[in-house]
């Protein structure tokens, strides 16, 4: 026992002796002129840092900073800009895309980057044995879906490097949104020799994780940190910080404000009560930034079971929902007030199409529908939500109150455990329900990512069971239309039908709250995906 005590004392002393007097982590001072940007990220990288396999999530920000596709989405205007490709041409039928690569492109290790690297990367991501979580991204390419589902071959996929600087892609059918897919991480080039050498482990270290973007990997300590430095072989300029260090945190929303206030991070993620706390704090209130996120949170209605199969009832409920009060009072302005079903900025969305808030009209419609002052309203119309989420609960209760006071109807609140809710939701494909809450955010700013993917009766992503032949027809034509103005018009007409038919009631549009240190300039979240692009950031310290 005495030995044990002596040993433990020794250990405690050793700990004390070995502890450096100043911390050596990313929080310590940096040598003059070398600028460092310190950001938070989720601890568990979502599946992988392999762009061809990843489904985005944690790790996307790092991949976006280290890689570049043929084209990229401008993070301020949302336009598609030339990246590794200097220019591209689209055939008049909208089927063939010819990309001309820039001269002298290099990988981060100095090796030349060729068009064949893109061909390899695209076919690899589509190959079913690659186990990509986002393989369907490139399926509009001719022969890709067949290859991806095991019915075709790599040779049959119409993505071909015709020489070192030319990459030609043919599509199965016109896809006006295709350039957005070209800019996706799935379409980043990857290094064949490194992947063949290290297999799945090529992403783990800087020797094999060769990239082609503004930054390159220095070190990745899983579940701890990731460090990148400027890529000297990038074709363009990079006036951003010399080094970017991400601290990988299990719960960014809980941990990053703490690390930020202790001076360990330059940016923190704010949600819920922390937003109000920061707004009321003398120092932090000047560092709070609110960004738009192109997304909508909805109450989803089952349009096939009574009483919600009655159009007037759905319209009345939508008109009786005071979205301004929901965001500004109930949610303490943590989001943006609801405008319409589709989030602002998506081509086709028009705020004039929305039903808006009008309690008098709501009452009148409810009377016309046969429920004057709620008389005759069925007793068991349920509103289902995840009970553990305080915010969803607050919204459900507020909406219940609004509808009761305006329309005189009673709805039943039905809170569920998170996993049970997920299962319940998936089974709604064929089963009836009343209301539930869910949301969607843009992957890319194109109507296809909303109307066709979510609301088309063939997709019915949220199982509202809503069908409208005219709406479907407009969407089918929108998918084929190559003229941008005509295409927008088609979707605007569809948007009108969608809002009038009210299969969804918008609660709010998404937002993003950050704390950003005053010496950081240019740190900006674009409304779509919105990851930090370090090359746009200046560290003035």
């Amino acid at each position, binding site marked *: *026992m005495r030995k*044990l*005590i002596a*040993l*433990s004392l020794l*250990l*405690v002393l050793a*700990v004390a002796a*070995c*502890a*450096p007097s100043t*911390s*050596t*982590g990313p*929080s310590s001072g940096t040598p003059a002129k070398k600028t460092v940007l310190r950001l938070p990220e989720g*601890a*568990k990288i*979502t*599946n*992988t*840092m*392999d762009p061809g*396999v990843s*489904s*985005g*999530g944690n790790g996307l920000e790092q991949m976006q900073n280290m890689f570049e596709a043929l084209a990229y989405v401008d993070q301020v205007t949302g336009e598609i800009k030339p990246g590794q490709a200097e220019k591209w041409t689209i055939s008049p039928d909208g089927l063939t895309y010819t990309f001309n690569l820039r001269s002298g492109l290099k990988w981060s290790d100095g090796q030349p980057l060729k068009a064949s690297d893109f061909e390899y990367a695209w076919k690899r991501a589509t190959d*079913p*044995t690659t*186990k*990509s*979580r*986002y*393989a*369907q991204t490139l399926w509009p390419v001719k022969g890709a879906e067949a290859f*991806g*589902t095991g019915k075709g071959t790599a040779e049959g996929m119409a993505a071909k490097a015709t020489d070192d600087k030319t990459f030609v892609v043919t599509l199965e059918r016109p896809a006006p949104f295709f350039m957005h897919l070209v800019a996706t991480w799935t379409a980043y080039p990857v290094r064949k020799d490194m992947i063949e050498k290290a297999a*799945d*482990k*090529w*992403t783990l270290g800087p020797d094999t994780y060769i990239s082609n973007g503004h930054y390159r990997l220095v070190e990745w*300590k*899983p*579940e*701890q*940190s990731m460090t990148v430095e400027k890529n000297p072989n990038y074709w363009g300029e990079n006036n951003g910080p010399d080094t970017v260090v991400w*601290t*990988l*945190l*299990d*719960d960014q929303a809980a*941990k990053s404000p*703490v690390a930020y*206030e*202790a001076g*360990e991070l330059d940016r923190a993620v704010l949600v819920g009560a922390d937003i109000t706390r920061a707004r009321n704090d003398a120092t932090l209130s000047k560092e709070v930034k609110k960004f738009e996120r192109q997304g909508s949170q909805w109450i989803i209605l089952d349009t096939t079971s009574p009483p919600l199969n009655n159009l007037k009832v759905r319209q009345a409920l939508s008109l009786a929902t005071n979205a301004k009060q929901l965001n500004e009072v109930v949610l303490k302005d943590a989001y943006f007030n609801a405008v319409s079903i589709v989030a602002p900025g998506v081509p086709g969305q028009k705020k004039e199409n929305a039903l808006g808030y009008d309690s008098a009209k709501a009452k009148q419609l409810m009377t016309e529908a046969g429920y004057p002052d709620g008389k005759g309203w069925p007793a068991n119309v349920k509103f289902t939500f995840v009970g553990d989420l305080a915010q969803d609960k607050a919204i459900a209760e507020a909406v219940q109150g609004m509808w009761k006071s305006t329309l005189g109807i009673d709805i039943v609140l039905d809170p569920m455990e998170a*996993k*049970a809710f*997920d*299962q319940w939701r998936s089974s709604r494909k064929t089963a009836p329900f009343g209301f539930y809450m869910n949301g969607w955010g843009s*992957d890319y700013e194109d109507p296809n990512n909303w109307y066709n993917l979510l609301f088309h009766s063939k997709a019915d992503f949220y199982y509202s069971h809503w069908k409208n032949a005219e709406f479907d027809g407009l969407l089918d034509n929108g998918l084929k239309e190559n003229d941008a103005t005509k295409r927008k018009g088609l979707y605007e007409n569809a948007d009108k039908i969608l809002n009038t038919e009210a299969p969804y009631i918008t609660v709010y549009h998404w937002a993003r709250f950050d704390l950003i240190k005053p010496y950081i300039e240019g740190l900006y979240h674009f409304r779509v995906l919105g990851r930090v692009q370090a090359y746009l950031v200046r560290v003035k310290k």
Partner: protein
Amino acid sequence: MTIYVFRRLLWMAPSLFIVFTLTFLVVHATPGSPWDEREKPLSEAVKANLNKQYHLDDPLPKQYFDYLGNVLHGDLGPSYRSVERSVSEIIAATLPVSVQLGVASLLFAIVVGVPLGALAAVKHNTWIDYTASLVTVTGIATPAFVRVSLLIVVLSLGLALLPTGGWEGIFDVRAIIPILAIGSGPAAILARYTRSSLLEVLGQDYIRTAHAKGVRPNAIIAAHAMKNALIPVVTVAGVTLGNVITGAFFVERIYGVPGIGRQFIDSVTGRDYTLLLGTVMVFALLIMVVNLLTDISYGYLDPRIRYR
């Protein structure tokens, strides 16, 4: 003694097999799959392909026997949610961190808990005893995730003495908060047990005999009383390992320590079947080994105990 240890080691194999089978059945009976993402669901075609590539579309008995075969050959399989690292590699990278943290926390618990309990027993029914009781009851009553949060608020944010999280090895300042947070619970338990056990021993005849012979009071406690008083304490120390492990789950997560406890939690929420099975097996083995060590240590503390 050797035969006893050998027999105990032999019994571990069937125990591990039962743990493996039960865990396998429970994880596959739980709703959800490794491909469920709350925010952006993967496309059905992608999920179908992943199930095929990872053989998750095989019948369950086939999956079970295939996987069991691999495990017997030392291959714990791929992690479904960390493509670049296999389950064995994740465990190899994270287990040493948790073991270091666990050992340091247990040592801290012993160094603080045992003397504190002894002091309370010797000075019992004085203000020292009452203060020690207050401290230990508080330590037992607060869970580790509350203690670690409090320590971060006080030591990192309030006094700015330590970083708010991270890990640079056991000999770095970043290890202090996790050790204090995990170790203080078992320290409190050990202090309580040492106090009551020592009080009981101090009332026995041979202690009075020692006093009568004129042995100095300090020597009586150190040489005569403590040795007997420590038997129940050692038992508890073994049991507190469970406390250390469960405390580590949350402390590692909150303080950002890259240990195996965090992997365990992630594997449950992410339905990463193989990683979950791997970590459960590691914890099961760990607890069995520590129980064996506890049993063996009795023999050294008390010659009356014989192994058969």
